[in-house]
Protein backbone atom coordinates (compact mmCIF):
# COMPACT_ATOMS: atom_id res chain seq x y z
CA UNK A 1 0.00 0.00 0.00
CA UNK A 2 2.71 2.43 1.05
CA UNK A 3 4.85 1.45 -1.87
CA UNK A 4 1.98 2.25 -4.18
CA UNK A 5 1.62 5.71 -2.70
CA UNK A 6 5.30 6.39 -3.17
CA UNK A 7 5.15 5.21 -6.77
CA UNK A 8 2.20 7.42 -7.39
CA UNK A 9 3.97 10.41 -5.88
CA UNK A 10 7.03 9.81 -8.06
CA UNK A 11 4.87 9.42 -11.15
CA UNK A 12 2.93 12.56 -10.35
CA UNK A 13 5.97 14.68 -9.62
CA UNK A 14 6.79 15.87 -13.18
CA UNK A 15 3.14 16.62 -13.78
CA UNK A 16 2.95 18.59 -10.54
CA UNK A 17 6.00 20.68 -11.46
CA UNK A 18 4.47 21.25 -14.87
CA UNK A 19 1.14 22.40 -13.41
CA UNK A 20 2.82 24.67 -10.88
CA UNK A 21 5.21 26.28 -13.36
CA UNK A 22 2.85 26.70 -16.25
CA UNK A 23 -0.53 27.13 -14.63
CA UNK A 24 -0.40 28.04 -10.95
CA UNK A 25 2.48 30.53 -11.11
CA UNK A 26 1.16 32.34 -14.21
CA UNK A 27 -2.34 32.60 -12.72
CA UNK A 28 -0.88 34.09 -9.53
CA UNK A 29 1.18 36.52 -11.60
CA UNK A 30 -1.86 37.52 -13.62
CA UNK A 31 -3.84 38.10 -10.44
CA UNK A 32 -0.96 40.17 -9.10
CA UNK A 33 -0.67 42.32 -12.23
CA UNK A 34 -4.41 42.75 -12.52
CA UNK A 35 -4.87 43.88 -8.92
CA UNK A 36 -1.99 46.37 -8.73
CA UNK A 37 -1.28 49.64 -10.48
CA UNK A 38 1.96 50.71 -12.17
CA UNK A 39 3.58 51.38 -8.79
CA UNK A 40 2.77 47.91 -7.48
CA UNK A 41 0.09 49.17 -5.06
CA UNK A 42 -3.26 47.38 -4.71
CA UNK A 43 -5.86 48.97 -6.96
CA UNK A 44 -8.98 48.09 -8.92
CA UNK A 45 -8.35 50.71 -11.62
CA UNK A 46 -7.54 48.06 -14.21
CA UNK A 47 -10.95 46.49 -13.71
CA UNK A 48 -12.69 49.85 -13.71
CA UNK A 49 -11.07 50.66 -17.06
CA UNK A 50 -12.70 47.58 -18.57
CA UNK A 51 -16.27 48.52 -17.74
CA UNK A 52 -16.96 50.91 -20.57
CA UNK A 53 -19.22 50.28 -23.55
CA UNK A 54 -16.48 49.58 -26.11
CA UNK A 55 -14.77 46.81 -24.17
CA UNK A 56 -18.02 45.29 -22.92
CA UNK A 57 -19.32 45.16 -26.48
CA UNK A 58 -16.18 43.33 -27.62
CA UNK A 59 -16.48 40.90 -24.72
CA UNK A 60 -20.15 40.29 -25.46
CA UNK A 61 -19.30 39.64 -29.08
CA UNK A 62 -16.57 37.16 -28.11
CA UNK A 63 -18.95 35.20 -25.89
CA UNK A 64 -21.65 35.26 -28.54
CA UNK A 65 -19.40 34.14 -31.41
CA UNK A 66 -17.82 31.40 -29.31
CA UNK A 67 -21.29 30.19 -28.31
CA UNK A 68 -22.40 30.21 -31.92
CA UNK A 69 -19.32 28.24 -32.96
CA UNK A 70 -19.92 25.78 -30.12
CA UNK A 71 -23.55 25.18 -31.14
CA UNK A 72 -22.54 24.67 -34.77
CA UNK A 73 -19.74 22.31 -33.75
CA UNK A 74 -22.19 20.33 -31.62
CA UNK A 75 -24.79 20.09 -34.39
CA UNK A 76 -22.21 19.11 -36.99
CA UNK A 77 -20.01 17.06 -34.70
CA UNK A 78 -22.62 14.88 -32.98
CA UNK A 79 -23.77 13.05 -36.11
CA UNK A 80 -20.16 12.50 -37.15
CA UNK A 81 -19.36 11.12 -33.70
CA UNK A 82 -22.34 8.76 -34.00
CA UNK A 83 -21.21 7.57 -37.41
CA UNK A 84 -17.75 6.94 -36.01
CA UNK A 85 -19.14 5.00 -33.07
CA UNK A 86 -21.65 3.01 -35.10
CA UNK A 87 -21.17 -0.12 -37.18
CA UNK A 88 -22.89 0.81 -40.41
CA UNK A 89 -20.14 3.01 -41.84
CA UNK A 90 -17.35 0.91 -43.37
CA UNK A 91 -14.56 3.48 -43.82
CA UNK A 92 -14.28 4.64 -40.25
CA UNK A 93 -10.49 4.63 -40.22
CA UNK A 94 -10.39 6.85 -43.25
CA UNK A 95 -12.83 9.26 -41.60
CA UNK A 96 -10.74 9.39 -38.42
CA UNK A 97 -7.60 10.07 -40.43
CA UNK A 98 -9.36 12.82 -42.36
CA UNK A 99 -10.47 14.41 -39.12
CA UNK A 100 -7.11 14.14 -37.42
CA UNK A 101 -4.81 14.89 -40.35
CA UNK A 102 -5.35 18.67 -40.31
CA UNK A 103 -4.33 18.67 -36.65
CA UNK A 104 -0.87 17.48 -37.60
CA UNK A 105 -0.39 20.86 -39.16
CA UNK A 106 0.31 23.98 -37.18
CA UNK A 107 -2.82 25.85 -36.12
CA UNK A 108 -1.50 29.17 -37.49
CA UNK A 109 -0.63 27.62 -40.81
CA UNK A 110 -4.00 25.93 -41.12
CA UNK A 111 -5.77 29.22 -40.52
CA UNK A 112 -3.42 31.06 -42.83
CA UNK A 113 -4.16 28.56 -45.58
CA UNK A 114 -7.80 29.63 -45.49
CA UNK A 115 -6.69 33.15 -46.36
CA UNK A 116 -5.36 31.94 -49.67
CA UNK A 117 -8.57 30.07 -50.31
CA UNK A 118 -10.96 32.84 -49.33
CA UNK A 119 -9.15 35.99 -50.48
CA UNK A 120 -10.61 38.40 -53.02
CA UNK A 121 -8.47 36.79 -55.73
CA UNK A 122 -8.27 33.50 -53.86
CA UNK A 123 -9.04 29.99 -54.98
CA UNK A 124 -12.80 30.05 -54.27
CA UNK A 125 -13.33 33.38 -55.97
CA UNK A 126 -11.36 32.23 -59.00
CA UNK A 127 -13.64 29.21 -59.26
CA UNK A 128 -16.74 31.41 -58.85
CA UNK A 129 -15.53 33.74 -61.55
CA UNK A 130 -14.73 30.98 -63.99
CA UNK A 131 -18.33 29.83 -63.53
CA UNK A 132 -19.47 33.34 -64.40
CA UNK A 133 -20.56 34.11 -60.83
CA UNK A 134 -19.75 37.36 -59.01
CA UNK A 135 -16.89 37.53 -56.52
CA UNK A 136 -17.71 37.23 -52.85
CA UNK A 137 -16.10 38.96 -49.89
CA UNK A 138 -15.57 35.94 -47.68
CA UNK A 139 -13.14 37.54 -45.27
CA UNK A 140 -13.38 40.37 -42.81
CA UNK A 141 -16.79 39.58 -41.37
CA UNK A 142 -18.32 37.71 -38.46
CA UNK A 143 -19.12 34.66 -40.59
CA UNK A 144 -15.46 34.18 -41.47
CA UNK A 145 -14.49 34.30 -37.80
CA UNK A 146 -17.15 31.77 -36.76
CA UNK A 147 -16.18 29.58 -39.68
CA UNK A 148 -12.54 29.70 -38.55
CA UNK A 149 -13.54 28.64 -35.05
CA UNK A 150 -15.72 25.78 -36.26
CA UNK A 151 -13.05 24.58 -38.66
CA UNK A 152 -10.27 24.65 -36.08
CA UNK A 153 -12.17 23.32 -33.08
CA UNK A 154 -14.56 20.76 -34.60
CA UNK A 155 -12.33 17.74 -33.87
CA UNK A 156 -12.31 18.74 -30.20
CA UNK A 157 -16.09 18.34 -30.21
CA UNK A 158 -16.21 15.09 -32.17
CA UNK A 159 -13.70 12.96 -30.32
CA UNK A 160 -14.98 13.33 -26.73
CA UNK A 161 -18.52 12.61 -27.91
CA UNK A 162 -17.31 9.68 -29.97
CA UNK A 163 -15.54 8.27 -26.92
CA UNK A 164 -18.57 8.50 -24.69
CA UNK A 165 -20.92 7.05 -27.29
CA UNK A 166 -18.65 4.08 -27.96
CA UNK A 167 -18.54 3.38 -24.22
CA UNK A 168 -22.30 2.85 -24.09
CA UNK A 169 -22.79 -0.93 -23.73
CA UNK A 170 -24.55 -2.33 -26.79
CA UNK A 171 -26.83 -4.49 -24.67
CA UNK A 172 -28.46 -1.41 -23.12
CA UNK A 173 -29.51 -0.30 -26.56
CA UNK A 174 -30.61 -3.81 -27.46
CA UNK A 175 -32.65 -3.95 -24.26
CA UNK A 176 -34.32 -0.66 -25.12
CA UNK A 177 -35.22 -1.96 -28.53
CA UNK A 178 -36.51 -5.27 -27.08
CA UNK A 179 -38.81 -3.23 -24.88
CA UNK A 180 -40.26 -1.65 -27.99
CA UNK A 181 -38.28 1.58 -28.18
CA UNK A 182 -37.79 2.88 -31.70
CA UNK A 183 -34.63 4.57 -32.95
CA UNK A 184 -35.86 8.02 -31.93
CA UNK A 185 -36.77 7.04 -28.38
CA UNK A 186 -33.58 5.04 -28.14
CA UNK A 187 -31.56 8.10 -29.14
CA UNK A 188 -33.24 10.58 -26.83
CA UNK A 189 -33.64 8.27 -23.82
CA UNK A 190 -30.39 6.28 -24.01
CA UNK A 191 -27.66 7.56 -26.32
CA UNK A 192 -28.05 11.29 -25.77
CA UNK A 193 -28.19 11.21 -21.94
CA UNK A 194 -25.30 8.76 -21.76
CA UNK A 195 -23.15 10.89 -24.04
CA UNK A 196 -23.60 14.02 -21.93
CA UNK A 197 -20.09 13.76 -20.41
CA UNK A 198 -18.64 13.76 -23.93
CA UNK A 199 -20.81 16.68 -24.96
CA UNK A 200 -19.63 18.58 -21.90
CA UNK A 201 -15.95 18.10 -22.62
CA UNK A 202 -16.60 18.91 -26.27
CA UNK A 203 -18.42 22.11 -25.39
CA UNK A 204 -15.64 23.14 -23.03
CA UNK A 205 -12.92 22.40 -25.53
CA UNK A 206 -14.62 24.46 -28.23
CA UNK A 207 -16.08 27.29 -26.18
CA UNK A 208 -13.01 28.17 -24.12
CA UNK A 209 -10.51 28.53 -26.98
CA UNK A 210 -13.28 30.23 -28.97
CA UNK A 211 -13.76 32.96 -26.39
CA UNK A 212 -10.06 33.66 -26.11
CA UNK A 213 -8.83 33.33 -29.70
CA UNK A 214 -7.13 36.25 -31.38
CA UNK A 215 -5.43 34.60 -34.32
CA UNK A 216 -8.65 33.67 -36.08
CA UNK A 217 -10.12 37.16 -35.80
CA UNK A 218 -6.90 38.72 -37.02
CA UNK A 219 -6.50 36.42 -40.01
CA UNK A 220 -10.01 35.62 -41.16
CA UNK A 221 -11.64 38.71 -39.67
CA UNK A 222 -8.97 40.83 -41.41
CA UNK A 223 -8.51 42.64 -38.10
CA UNK A 224 -11.96 44.18 -38.53
CA UNK A 225 -13.67 42.03 -35.92
CA UNK A 226 -12.00 42.66 -32.60
CA UNK A 227 -12.40 39.90 -30.01
CA UNK A 228 -11.48 40.05 -26.35
CA UNK A 229 -8.34 38.00 -27.09
CA UNK A 230 -7.17 40.73 -29.45
CA UNK A 231 -7.53 43.33 -26.70
CA UNK A 232 -5.61 41.18 -24.23
CA UNK A 233 -2.87 40.46 -26.75
CA UNK A 234 -2.60 44.15 -27.54
CA UNK A 235 -2.26 45.16 -23.90
CA UNK A 236 0.53 42.66 -23.30
CA UNK A 237 2.43 42.81 -26.58
CA UNK A 238 1.88 46.32 -27.73
CA UNK A 239 0.70 48.76 -25.10
CA UNK A 240 2.87 47.23 -22.39
CA UNK A 241 -0.12 47.70 -20.10
CA UNK A 242 0.12 44.33 -18.35
CA UNK A 243 -2.16 45.43 -15.53
CA UNK A 244 -5.10 46.07 -17.83
CA UNK A 245 -4.36 42.97 -19.92
CA UNK A 246 -4.23 40.86 -16.77
CA UNK A 247 -7.48 42.35 -15.47
CA UNK A 248 -9.27 41.46 -18.71
CA UNK A 249 -7.80 37.95 -18.54
CA UNK A 250 -9.18 37.53 -15.03
CA UNK A 251 -12.61 38.75 -16.11
CA UNK A 252 -12.57 36.32 -19.04
CA UNK A 253 -11.49 33.47 -16.76
CA UNK A 254 -14.29 34.22 -14.32
CA UNK A 255 -16.82 34.39 -17.14
CA UNK A 256 -15.62 31.11 -18.63
CA UNK A 257 -15.71 29.35 -15.26
CA UNK A 258 -19.24 30.67 -14.68
CA UNK A 259 -20.35 29.44 -18.09
CA UNK A 260 -18.87 26.00 -17.45
CA UNK A 261 -20.50 25.86 -14.03
CA UNK A 262 -23.85 26.67 -15.59
CA UNK A 263 -23.40 23.98 -18.23
CA UNK A 264 -22.41 21.44 -15.60
CA UNK A 265 -25.40 22.28 -13.43
CA UNK A 266 -27.67 21.90 -16.39
CA UNK A 267 -26.17 18.51 -17.14
CA UNK A 268 -26.60 17.31 -13.53
CA UNK A 269 -30.28 18.09 -13.85
CA UNK A 270 -30.51 16.28 -17.14
CA UNK A 271 -29.35 13.04 -15.57
CA UNK A 272 -32.72 12.93 -13.82
CA UNK A 273 -34.26 11.95 -17.15
CA UNK A 274 -32.23 8.76 -17.12
CA UNK A 275 -34.11 5.72 -15.86
Amino acid sequence: MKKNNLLRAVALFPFLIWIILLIVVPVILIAYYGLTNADGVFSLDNFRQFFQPNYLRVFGRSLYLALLATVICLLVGYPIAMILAGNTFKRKTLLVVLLIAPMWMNFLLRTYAWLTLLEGNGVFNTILQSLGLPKQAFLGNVNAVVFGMVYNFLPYMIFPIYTSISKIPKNIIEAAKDLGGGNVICFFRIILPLSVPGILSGVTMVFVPGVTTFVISQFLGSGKITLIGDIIEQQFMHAGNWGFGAAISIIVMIAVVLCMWLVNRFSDDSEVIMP
Partner: protein
Amino acid sequence: MKKIALLLCLVLCFSVFSGCSNSGKTVLRVYNWGEYIDESVIKEFEKRFPDIRVQYETYTDNEIMYTKITNSSTKYDVLIPSDYMIERLIGENMLAPLNFDNIPNYSLIDNKYKNLDFDPENKYSVPYMWGTLGILYDKTKVHEEHFTWEMLFDGKYANSILMKKDMRDALGVSLKSLGYSFNSVDAGELNAAKDRLSAQKNNVLAYVNDDGMDKMIAGEAPMALMYSGDAAYCISENDNLAFAIPEDGSNLFFDSMVIPANSEHKDAAEKFINFMCEKEIAEKNANEIGYSTPHTGVYEALPAEVKNSFAYPETDILEKAEIYKYLGEEITSMYERVWSEFQASL
Protein backbone atom coordinates in the same frame (compact mmCIF):
# COMPACT_ATOMS: atom_id res chain seq x y z
CA MET B 1 8.70 43.02 -6.90
CA LYS B 2 7.10 42.75 -10.32
CA LYS B 3 10.44 42.31 -11.99
CA ILE B 4 11.69 39.81 -9.43
CA ALA B 5 8.68 37.56 -9.74
CA LEU B 6 8.89 37.62 -13.48
CA LEU B 7 12.60 37.07 -13.47
CA LEU B 8 12.30 34.08 -11.19
CA CYS B 9 9.73 32.59 -13.46
CA LEU B 10 11.81 33.17 -16.56
CA VAL B 11 15.02 31.94 -14.97
CA LEU B 12 13.27 28.73 -14.07
CA CYS B 13 12.06 28.31 -17.62
CA PHE B 14 15.32 29.30 -19.18
CA SER B 15 17.57 27.15 -17.07
CA VAL B 16 15.87 24.20 -18.73
CA PHE B 17 16.86 25.28 -22.22
CA SER B 18 20.05 27.24 -21.79
CA GLY B 19 22.25 24.18 -22.04
CA CYS B 20 21.99 23.90 -25.78
CA SER B 21 22.94 27.43 -26.85
CA ASN B 22 26.51 27.60 -25.49
CA SER B 23 29.00 26.17 -27.90
CA GLY B 24 31.82 28.53 -27.02
CA LYS B 25 30.67 31.12 -29.54
CA THR B 26 29.48 34.59 -28.66
CA VAL B 27 25.76 34.73 -29.31
CA LEU B 28 24.86 38.11 -30.77
CA ARG B 29 21.15 38.86 -30.45
CA VAL B 30 19.94 41.16 -33.21
CA TYR B 31 16.36 42.44 -33.02
CA ASN B 32 15.10 44.13 -36.17
CA TRP B 33 11.92 44.97 -38.05
CA GLY B 34 10.50 42.10 -40.11
CA GLU B 35 11.43 42.04 -43.83
CA TYR B 36 14.17 44.56 -43.14
CA ILE B 37 17.43 42.87 -44.09
CA ASP B 38 18.98 40.70 -46.76
CA GLU B 39 19.36 37.61 -44.62
CA SER B 40 22.42 36.38 -46.55
CA VAL B 41 24.25 39.29 -44.94
CA ILE B 42 23.94 37.59 -41.56
CA LYS B 43 25.57 34.44 -42.94
CA GLU B 44 28.39 36.54 -44.37
CA PHE B 45 28.92 38.20 -41.00
CA GLU B 46 29.16 34.81 -39.32
CA LYS B 47 31.65 33.68 -41.93
CA ARG B 48 33.79 36.77 -41.38
CA PHE B 49 33.64 36.43 -37.60
CA PRO B 50 33.55 32.68 -36.96
CA ASP B 51 33.43 33.08 -33.19
CA ILE B 52 30.15 34.99 -33.33
CA ARG B 53 26.77 33.40 -33.91
CA VAL B 54 23.91 35.77 -34.74
CA GLN B 55 20.53 35.09 -33.23
CA TYR B 56 18.19 37.12 -35.41
CA GLU B 57 14.67 38.06 -34.31
CA THR B 58 12.11 40.41 -35.79
CA TYR B 59 9.23 42.59 -34.62
CA THR B 60 6.34 44.28 -36.41
CA ASP B 61 6.37 47.66 -34.72
CA ASN B 62 8.42 49.80 -32.36
CA GLU B 63 6.00 49.33 -29.48
CA ILE B 64 6.26 45.54 -29.54
CA MET B 65 10.02 45.86 -29.52
CA TYR B 66 9.87 48.24 -26.57
CA THR B 67 7.57 45.94 -24.58
CA LYS B 68 9.83 43.01 -25.28
CA ILE B 69 13.13 44.62 -24.34
CA THR B 70 11.72 46.17 -21.17
CA ASN B 71 9.94 43.07 -19.90
CA SER B 72 11.89 40.10 -21.11
CA SER B 73 15.03 38.79 -19.51
CA THR B 74 16.56 38.29 -22.95
CA LYS B 75 19.41 40.73 -23.44
CA TYR B 76 19.62 41.97 -26.99
CA ASP B 77 22.82 43.34 -28.48
CA VAL B 78 21.69 45.25 -31.55
CA LEU B 79 18.30 46.89 -32.14
CA ILE B 80 17.12 48.86 -35.17
CA PRO B 81 14.27 51.06 -33.89
CA SER B 82 12.91 54.27 -35.41
CA ASP B 83 13.66 57.87 -34.51
CA TYR B 84 11.07 58.54 -31.78
CA MET B 85 11.70 55.18 -30.16
CA ILE B 86 15.45 55.85 -30.08
CA GLU B 87 14.70 59.19 -28.44
CA ARG B 88 12.62 57.38 -25.83
CA LEU B 89 15.28 54.73 -25.19
CA ILE B 90 17.99 57.39 -24.82
CA GLY B 91 15.81 59.33 -22.39
CA GLU B 92 15.25 56.21 -20.32
CA ASN B 93 18.99 55.41 -20.24
CA MET B 94 18.42 52.14 -22.04
CA LEU B 95 21.07 52.59 -24.71
CA ALA B 96 24.84 52.30 -24.50
CA PRO B 97 26.93 55.10 -26.00
CA LEU B 98 28.77 53.73 -29.03
CA ASN B 99 32.52 53.60 -29.31
CA PHE B 100 32.95 54.99 -32.80
CA ASP B 101 36.61 53.87 -32.88
CA ASN B 102 35.16 50.39 -33.38
CA ILE B 103 32.83 51.60 -36.12
CA PRO B 104 35.19 53.22 -38.64
CA ASN B 105 32.65 52.72 -41.43
CA TYR B 106 30.48 55.33 -39.75
CA SER B 107 32.42 57.83 -41.85
CA LEU B 108 30.80 56.32 -44.95
CA ILE B 109 27.38 57.55 -43.82
CA ASP B 110 26.27 60.83 -45.34
CA ASN B 111 26.59 63.69 -42.83
CA LYS B 112 23.07 64.88 -43.41
CA TYR B 113 21.78 61.75 -41.65
CA LYS B 114 23.89 62.36 -38.56
CA ASN B 115 23.10 64.38 -35.44
CA LEU B 116 19.37 64.27 -36.10
CA ASP B 117 16.98 65.51 -33.42
CA PHE B 118 16.40 62.12 -31.79
CA ASP B 119 20.14 61.71 -31.10
CA PRO B 120 21.46 65.29 -31.39
CA GLU B 121 25.11 64.54 -30.60
CA ASN B 122 24.94 61.20 -32.40
CA LYS B 123 26.33 59.25 -29.48
CA TYR B 124 24.00 56.26 -29.60
CA SER B 125 22.91 55.45 -33.12
CA VAL B 126 24.17 54.65 -36.60
CA PRO B 127 21.68 55.25 -39.44
CA TYR B 128 20.50 52.08 -41.18
CA MET B 129 17.71 53.13 -43.54
CA TRP B 130 15.16 55.88 -43.93
CA GLY B 131 11.92 56.39 -45.75
CA THR B 132 8.55 58.03 -45.91
CA LEU B 133 4.97 57.01 -45.28
CA GLY B 134 2.65 57.11 -48.26
CA ILE B 135 -0.05 55.43 -50.27
CA LEU B 136 0.72 52.43 -52.46
CA TYR B 137 -2.03 52.11 -55.05
CA ASP B 138 -3.10 50.06 -58.02
CA LYS B 139 -2.96 52.27 -61.11
CA THR B 140 -5.77 50.30 -62.74
CA LYS B 141 -8.16 50.97 -59.86
CA VAL B 142 -7.21 54.34 -58.41
CA HIS B 143 -7.28 57.39 -60.66
CA GLU B 144 -6.46 60.51 -58.69
CA GLU B 145 -4.55 63.59 -59.71
CA HIS B 146 -3.71 64.69 -56.21
CA PHE B 147 -2.96 62.36 -53.40
CA THR B 148 -3.86 63.50 -49.90
CA TRP B 149 -4.44 61.66 -46.62
CA GLU B 150 -8.10 62.58 -47.02
CA MET B 151 -8.31 59.82 -49.66
CA LEU B 152 -8.00 57.14 -47.01
CA PHE B 153 -11.19 58.44 -45.40
CA ASP B 154 -13.11 59.19 -48.60
CA GLY B 155 -16.43 57.33 -48.74
CA LYS B 156 -15.93 56.36 -52.38
CA TYR B 157 -13.21 53.89 -51.41
CA ALA B 158 -15.41 51.44 -49.53
CA ASN B 159 -13.67 48.17 -48.64
CA SER B 160 -10.59 49.24 -50.54
CA ILE B 161 -7.81 50.10 -48.15
CA LEU B 162 -5.18 48.03 -46.40
CA MET B 163 -4.62 50.04 -43.24
CA LYS B 164 -1.48 49.79 -41.15
CA LYS B 165 -2.00 48.39 -37.67
CA ASP B 166 0.73 50.63 -36.26
CA MET B 167 -0.27 53.06 -33.53
CA ARG B 168 1.79 56.08 -34.53
CA ASP B 169 1.24 55.60 -38.26
CA ALA B 170 -2.52 55.07 -38.12
CA LEU B 171 -3.21 57.81 -35.59
CA GLY B 172 -0.65 59.99 -37.36
CA VAL B 173 -2.28 59.95 -40.79
CA SER B 174 -5.68 60.43 -39.20
CA LEU B 175 -4.36 63.46 -37.30
CA LYS B 176 -2.72 64.82 -40.42
CA SER B 177 -5.86 64.37 -42.52
CA LEU B 178 -7.65 66.56 -39.98
CA GLY B 179 -4.97 69.21 -40.38
CA TYR B 180 -3.16 68.42 -37.12
CA SER B 181 0.43 67.43 -36.53
CA PHE B 182 1.79 63.86 -36.65
CA ASN B 183 3.10 64.69 -33.19
CA SER B 184 -0.10 66.08 -31.71
CA VAL B 185 -0.21 66.11 -27.92
CA ASP B 186 -3.76 67.41 -27.66
CA ALA B 187 -6.39 65.06 -26.18
CA GLY B 188 -9.18 66.59 -28.24
CA GLU B 189 -7.25 66.21 -31.49
CA LEU B 190 -6.35 62.63 -30.63
CA ASN B 191 -9.93 61.71 -29.86
CA ALA B 192 -11.03 63.24 -33.15
CA ALA B 193 -8.34 61.18 -34.90
CA LYS B 194 -9.57 58.06 -33.12
CA ASP B 195 -13.18 58.67 -34.14
CA ARG B 196 -12.04 59.20 -37.70
CA LEU B 197 -10.18 55.87 -37.66
CA SER B 198 -13.24 54.09 -36.27
CA ALA B 199 -15.39 55.63 -38.99
CA GLN B 200 -12.81 54.55 -41.57
CA LYS B 201 -13.65 50.89 -40.91
CA ASN B 202 -16.00 50.78 -43.91
CA ASN B 203 -13.17 51.82 -46.19
CA VAL B 204 -10.79 49.25 -44.80
CA LEU B 205 -10.44 45.88 -46.47
CA ALA B 206 -8.05 44.60 -43.80
CA TYR B 207 -5.85 45.89 -41.01
CA VAL B 208 -2.33 44.70 -41.77
CA ASN B 209 1.36 44.85 -40.96
CA ASP B 210 3.90 43.33 -43.30
CA ASP B 211 1.24 41.00 -44.69
CA GLY B 212 -0.11 44.02 -46.56
CA MET B 213 2.79 43.68 -49.00
CA ASP B 214 1.75 40.22 -50.22
CA LYS B 215 -1.84 41.35 -50.55
CA MET B 216 -0.90 44.35 -52.67
CA ILE B 217 1.38 42.25 -54.86
CA ALA B 218 -1.48 39.78 -55.36
CA GLY B 219 -3.74 42.65 -56.41
CA GLU B 220 -6.09 42.11 -53.47
CA ALA B 221 -6.68 45.79 -52.72
CA PRO B 222 -6.70 49.11 -54.58
CA MET B 223 -4.53 50.88 -52.02
CA ALA B 224 -2.54 50.57 -48.84
CA LEU B 225 -0.92 52.80 -46.28
CA MET B 226 2.71 51.79 -46.64
CA TYR B 227 6.34 52.69 -46.01
CA SER B 228 8.25 53.78 -49.09
CA GLY B 229 10.68 50.86 -48.96
CA ASP B 230 7.98 48.20 -48.72
CA ALA B 231 6.21 50.00 -51.56
CA ALA B 232 9.35 49.86 -53.70
CA TYR B 233 9.51 46.11 -53.14
CA CYS B 234 5.83 45.65 -54.05
CA ILE B 235 6.24 47.71 -57.21
CA SER B 236 9.21 45.57 -58.25
CA GLU B 237 6.89 42.55 -58.04
CA ASN B 238 3.77 44.06 -59.62
CA ASP B 239 3.94 46.62 -62.43
CA ASN B 240 0.42 47.93 -61.79
CA LEU B 241 1.41 49.45 -58.50
CA ALA B 242 2.62 52.98 -57.82
CA PHE B 243 3.46 54.98 -54.73
CA ALA B 244 2.41 58.49 -53.82
CA ILE B 245 3.57 60.68 -50.98
CA PRO B 246 0.49 62.70 -49.98
CA GLU B 247 0.74 66.38 -50.75
CA ASP B 248 -0.41 67.54 -47.34
CA GLY B 249 2.82 66.30 -45.82
CA SER B 250 4.16 62.88 -44.95
CA ASN B 251 6.04 61.28 -42.13
CA LEU B 252 9.78 60.99 -42.60
CA PHE B 253 11.41 58.25 -40.57
CA PHE B 254 14.91 57.08 -39.77
CA ASP B 255 15.73 53.64 -38.46
CA SER B 256 19.12 53.42 -36.81
CA MET B 257 21.22 50.71 -35.23
CA VAL B 258 21.67 51.00 -31.48
CA ILE B 259 23.08 48.88 -28.65
CA PRO B 260 21.00 48.40 -25.48
CA ALA B 261 22.73 49.41 -22.25
CA ASN B 262 22.40 45.87 -20.90
CA SER B 263 24.09 44.21 -23.89
CA GLU B 264 26.77 41.77 -22.79
CA HIS B 265 28.54 41.67 -26.14
CA LYS B 266 29.09 45.29 -26.95
CA ASP B 267 32.28 44.65 -28.94
CA ALA B 268 30.61 42.06 -31.14
CA ALA B 269 27.62 44.37 -31.53
CA GLU B 270 29.86 47.19 -32.72
CA LYS B 271 31.52 44.78 -35.14
CA PHE B 272 28.06 43.97 -36.48
CA ILE B 273 27.11 47.63 -36.86
CA ASN B 274 30.40 48.38 -38.58
CA PHE B 275 29.87 45.41 -40.88
CA MET B 276 26.40 46.64 -41.82
CA CYS B 277 27.95 49.98 -42.87
CA GLU B 278 30.35 48.35 -45.34
CA LYS B 279 29.46 49.47 -48.81
CA GLU B 280 28.80 46.02 -50.30
CA ILE B 281 26.70 44.97 -47.33
CA ALA B 282 24.71 48.21 -47.14
CA GLU B 283 24.16 47.91 -50.87
CA LYS B 284 22.84 44.37 -50.58
CA ASN B 285 20.42 45.40 -47.88
CA ALA B 286 19.23 48.48 -49.71
CA ASN B 287 18.67 46.50 -52.90
CA GLU B 288 16.86 43.71 -51.13
CA ILE B 289 14.46 45.71 -48.97
CA GLY B 290 13.98 48.82 -51.13
CA TYR B 291 14.38 51.44 -48.42
CA SER B 292 16.40 54.62 -48.85
CA THR B 293 20.03 54.40 -47.87
CA PRO B 294 21.93 56.93 -45.76
CA HIS B 295 25.20 55.50 -47.12
CA THR B 296 27.00 57.95 -49.42
CA GLY B 297 28.69 55.34 -51.59
CA VAL B 298 25.61 53.18 -51.95
CA TYR B 299 23.50 56.19 -52.90
CA GLU B 300 25.99 57.35 -55.53
CA ALA B 301 26.10 53.93 -57.12
CA LEU B 302 22.31 53.82 -57.54
CA PRO B 303 20.89 53.92 -61.05
CA ALA B 304 19.43 57.31 -61.97
CA GLU B 305 15.84 56.03 -62.05
CA VAL B 306 16.05 55.01 -58.38
CA LYS B 307 17.71 58.29 -57.38
CA ASN B 308 14.87 60.17 -59.04
CA SER B 309 12.14 57.93 -57.64
CA PHE B 310 9.96 58.46 -54.57
CA ALA B 311 12.65 56.71 -52.52
CA TYR B 312 14.67 59.93 -52.61
CA PRO B 313 12.00 62.63 -52.69
CA GLU B 314 12.65 66.25 -53.58
CA THR B 315 13.60 68.70 -50.88
CA ASP B 316 10.20 70.39 -50.66
CA ILE B 317 8.51 67.07 -49.89
CA LEU B 318 11.10 66.29 -47.24
CA GLU B 319 10.78 69.74 -45.74
CA LYS B 320 7.03 69.36 -45.46
CA ALA B 321 7.38 65.96 -43.82
CA GLU B 322 7.33 65.52 -40.06
CA ILE B 323 9.56 63.20 -38.08
CA TYR B 324 7.89 61.44 -35.15
CA LYS B 325 8.98 62.71 -31.78
CA TYR B 326 8.87 60.85 -28.52
CA LEU B 327 6.06 62.61 -26.72
CA GLY B 328 6.82 61.67 -23.13
CA GLU B 329 5.36 59.02 -20.89
CA GLU B 330 2.07 60.73 -20.19
CA ILE B 331 1.19 61.50 -23.81
CA THR B 332 2.40 58.07 -24.91
CA SER B 333 0.04 56.36 -22.50
CA MET B 334 -2.73 58.62 -23.79
CA TYR B 335 -1.87 57.39 -27.31
CA GLU B 336 -1.94 53.79 -26.06
CA ARG B 337 -5.32 54.31 -24.42
CA VAL B 338 -6.83 55.97 -27.47
CA TRP B 339 -5.37 53.25 -29.69
CA SER B 340 -6.84 50.40 -27.70
CA GLU B 341 -10.19 52.19 -27.54
CA PHE B 342 -10.03 52.39 -31.31
CA GLN B 343 -9.31 48.65 -31.53
CA ALA B 344 -12.22 47.94 -29.22
CA SER B 345 -14.46 50.00 -31.48
CA LEU B 346 -13.95 47.60 -34.40
